[in-house]
C-alpha cells in the first residue's frame, strides 16, 4: 500500500510552474529521498503533501485520504527553515507541538526523545538559548513526538556536525523500523545513497528520477571509472573515450563516452602515468544529479 500517491499534480505561483504534472508513489514503511537543485520544486511538493499548499491540478492521497483533508495529526513535518517559539522552554514547547497533533503520553515521550538526542539537560532552557544544531534536533523532536505514521523532513541534515548527523540518521532509521514512512529532501547525495530505499529527483518541477538507487544507477550502466594516478588530473586530459573528468584531487572520476572500452581507457592512462588504483563502477548519485541538473556545463566539460 502506498502512503502517499500523487497523480499529475501541478502547482503554479503566478506564471512560475513550481511542480509540473508530477506523479509519485511512496510505499508504506520506506525511506524516500527527494533530491533536486534549489528551486526545483521539492519544498512545494512536500508542502502539498502536507496540505499546506493545494495543487492547481491533479490528485494527492495521503494515508488513504484524498483531497485537501490530509490528517495532519498522523503526519510529522520538519520544514526546511526552523522555527519554534524562541521564548518558550524546550520541554514545554515540544509538549505543545505534540499536543497540537493530539499526541498521547507526551511528557514521557518528550523526555525519551530529549534523552535520545542529547538534549536532556536543556529541557528547561528557552529555545533561543539553544545552538543551531540543538534547535534543529529540537525541531526534529517536535515533528516526531506525536508518533506520526508519515514523517516529512525538509533538509533535516543540513548544518549538522557529523555526530549530530549520525544521531539523527539513526533516529530516522529507527522510526522506519517502527513502521513509519519517512520522506526527506536533501542536498547530501551520500546521505541519500546510504539511507533511502527510494530516490526521487525533481528538476524544474518535473520528475527526472524515481526508483531504488540500484534501478537509477542501472539506467546509466557502468560508465564510470574511478582512477588514482601518480600525476593526478593533468595526466588524464584529452584521453580518448572519456567524456568528462571530475577531479576530486587525489581521485579522478571519468565518465566514459558511449561505447568506449574501459580497457582501452586504462591502457591510455597507463601509457601516460603510473596507475595506483582503477575501478569500473556505476555513476554515483552525485554524478547523476550533476548530469541532470547541469547539462549546459556538461558541454564545456567535454574532454
Amino acid at each position, binding site marked *: 500500500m502506498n502512503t502517499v500517491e500523487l497523480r499529475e499534480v501541478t502547482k503554479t505561483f503566478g506564471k512560475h510552474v513550481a511542480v509540473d504534472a508530477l506523479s509519485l508513489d511512496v510505499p508504506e514503511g520506506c525511506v524516500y529521498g527527494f533530491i533536486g537543485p534549489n528551486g526545483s520544486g521539492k519544498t512545494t511538493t512536500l508542502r502539498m503533501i*502536507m496540505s*499546506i499548499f493545494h495543487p492547481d491540478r491533479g490528485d494527492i492521497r495521503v494515508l488513504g485520504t484524498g483531497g485537501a483533508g490530509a490528517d495532519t495529526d498522523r503526519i510529522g*513535518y520538519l520544514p526546511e527553515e*526552523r*522555527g519554534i517559539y524562541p521564548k*518558550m522552554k524546550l520541554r514545554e514547547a515540544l509538549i505543545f*507541538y505534540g499536543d*497540537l497533533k493530539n499526541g498521547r503520553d507526551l511528557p514521557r515521550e518528550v523526555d525519551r526523545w530529549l534523552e535520545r538526542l542529547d538534549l536532556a539537560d536543556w529541557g528547561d532552557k528557552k529555545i533561543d538559548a539553544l545552538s543551531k544544531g540543538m534547535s534543529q534536533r529540537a525541531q526534529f523532536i517536535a515533528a516526531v513526538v506525536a508518533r506520526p505514521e508519515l514523517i*516529512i523532513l525538509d533538509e533535516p541534515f543540513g548544518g549538522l556536525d557529523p555526530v549530530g548527523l549520525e544521531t539523527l540518521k539513526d533516529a530516522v532509521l529507527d522510526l522506519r523500523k517502527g513502521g513509519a514512512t519517512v520522506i526527506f529532501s536533501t542536498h547530501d547525495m551520500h546521505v541519500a545513497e546510504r539511507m533511502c530505499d527510494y530516490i526521487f529527483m525533481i528538476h524544474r518541477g518535473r520528475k527526472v528520477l524515481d526508483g531504488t538507487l540500484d534501478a537509477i544507477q542501472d539506467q546509466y550502466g557502468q560508465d564510470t571509472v574511478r582512477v588514482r594516478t601518480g600525476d593526478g588530473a593533468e595526466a588524464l586530459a584529452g584521453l580518448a573515450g572519456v567524456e568528462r573528468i571530475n577531479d576530486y584531487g587525489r581521485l579522478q572520476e571519468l565518465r566514459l563516452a558511449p561505447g568506449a572500452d574501459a580497457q582501452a581507457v586504462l591502457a591510455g592512462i597507463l601509457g601516460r602515468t603510473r596507475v595506483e588504483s582503477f575501478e569500473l563502477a556505476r555513476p554515483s548519485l552525485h554524478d547523476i544529479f550533476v548530469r541532470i541538473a547541469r547539462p549546459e556545463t556538461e558541454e564545456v566539460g567535454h574532454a
Partner: protein
Amino acid sequence: MRKTLKLAKREYLAAVRSKGFIIALVLAPVLMSGSILAMALLGDKVDTTDQRLAVVDRSGVVAEALVAAAEQRNAQAVRDEDGKKVRPAYVIEVVAPEADAAAQRLALSDRVRAGTLRAFLEIGPEVLHPGEDAEARAIRYHARNAAMDDLRGWLGWPVNTTLRKARLAEAGMDAAVLDEMLIYMGVEAMGLVERDATGEAAAARRSSEGEALGVPFAMVMLMFLMLMMGAIPQLNAVMEEKNQRIAEVLLGSISPFQFMMGKVLGGLAVSLTGAIVYVALGVLALSYTAVAFPVPYHILPWFFAWTLLAVVMTGSAMAAVGSACNDPKEAQSLAMPAMMPVMIPMFLLVPVIKSPTSGLATGLSFFPSFTPMLMLLRQSTPAGVPAWQPWAGLAIVLAATVLTIWAGGRIFRVAILMKGQPPTIKNLLRWALRG
C-alpha cells in the same frame, strides 16, 4: 476548534506571563490616574504673584469702579480660610489717556515686555453708549497671551456691571436698588426624576460633569486600551512568526484559519482579562469613594460585547495584514493605515460626546469599524440612545466581524508562506477575493 483553542491558550499564557503584560496592566491605570492626579494637583498650583494691570480709560466711566472691584476681589478671593494666598491679587494702575494712542500702546506694551505690567486694558471713549464707530466702543486687553488669561476673563463682569449701572443711573434708576437689579442667577444641571421603590417621585440627582463626560470617556478609553493590548499587536506578532518560520511549523499541524483564529482568540482572552481587571477596579473605586454618581452597571454588558467584537474584528484584520508583511519595515509602514479604523473614532470623541443624539453622531456610530467605540460612547452619556440603535449596531458589527474573519482568513492562507510579494492594497484585495 480544539486545536484553535490550544493555540489560543498558548498565546494567552505567553502574553499574560510576560513581564510586559503585568507592567502594562499595572502601569496603564497608574499612568492614567497619575495624570488625572497631576492635573488636579497642578490645577491648584496657580501662580499667586500679584498681577498688575494698567487701565487707559478713555470713557472716564470704568477705571474707578474697576479699582474698587479689584480691591473687593482681592479682599475676598485671594486668600483661603487659613489665610494662605491661593490666587494672585489684581492691582489696577490707572493711566491717563494720551493724545497719541498708538504711542501710548507701544509704551505700555514695552512695559509688559519688561515685566513691570501683566497687561493693559484700553477702554474706548464711547463704551457707555456704543455707537457706529467700532474703535470708539472697543474694550481691548493687551497681554503676551491674551486669549488664555484669567485676568481678562475676570474683567468682563466688573466692566459690564459698571457700564450697566451707569446707564441705569442715567435713566433715573435709584442707586440703592441697582445692585439687586444686577444679581446674576446660575442654572443648575439636574438629571430626570425617577420613580423610587414606592412609585413616588424620587429626588432628581444633580447631573455632574464626571457622569456626563467621565463615564463615556473612561469606557471608550478602556476599549481602546484593550484593542492596544489584544488586537493591534497581532500585526507585528504574525509578521514575526512568519519571518521566524514559526508559522510554517504550525501549519504542519493546523490550518491557516485555525492559526489565525488561535491568535485572535488568544488576543481576545488577553483583552478580556485586562478589561475585567480594570472594570472591577473601576466599580470598586466608584463604590467606595464619594463620587456623585452610581456605577453605570447597565452599560457594562454592552462594554464587554462591544470590546469582544472590536478585538475580534480588529485582531483578524491585523493578523491578515501581518501575514502579508515580509519584514518589520513593511509592518511599520502598514501599522498606521491599519490602525486608522481604531484611531478615527478617538478623534471623534469630543463632537460625539457633545451632541450624542445628533445626526452626525448617529450616522458615524453605524459605520462598522467605528460602531463599538462610538455607540458605546453615546450609550454611556446620560442622554443615552434609542433602544433599537445598539441592537442594530450590534447586528452590523457582527456581520462586519464575520466578513473580516472571512476575508482575513483568505488573505492569511495565501500570504502566510508567501515571500517577496509586498502587502499592497491591491495584493490584499486580490488575495481576499480570489483566495
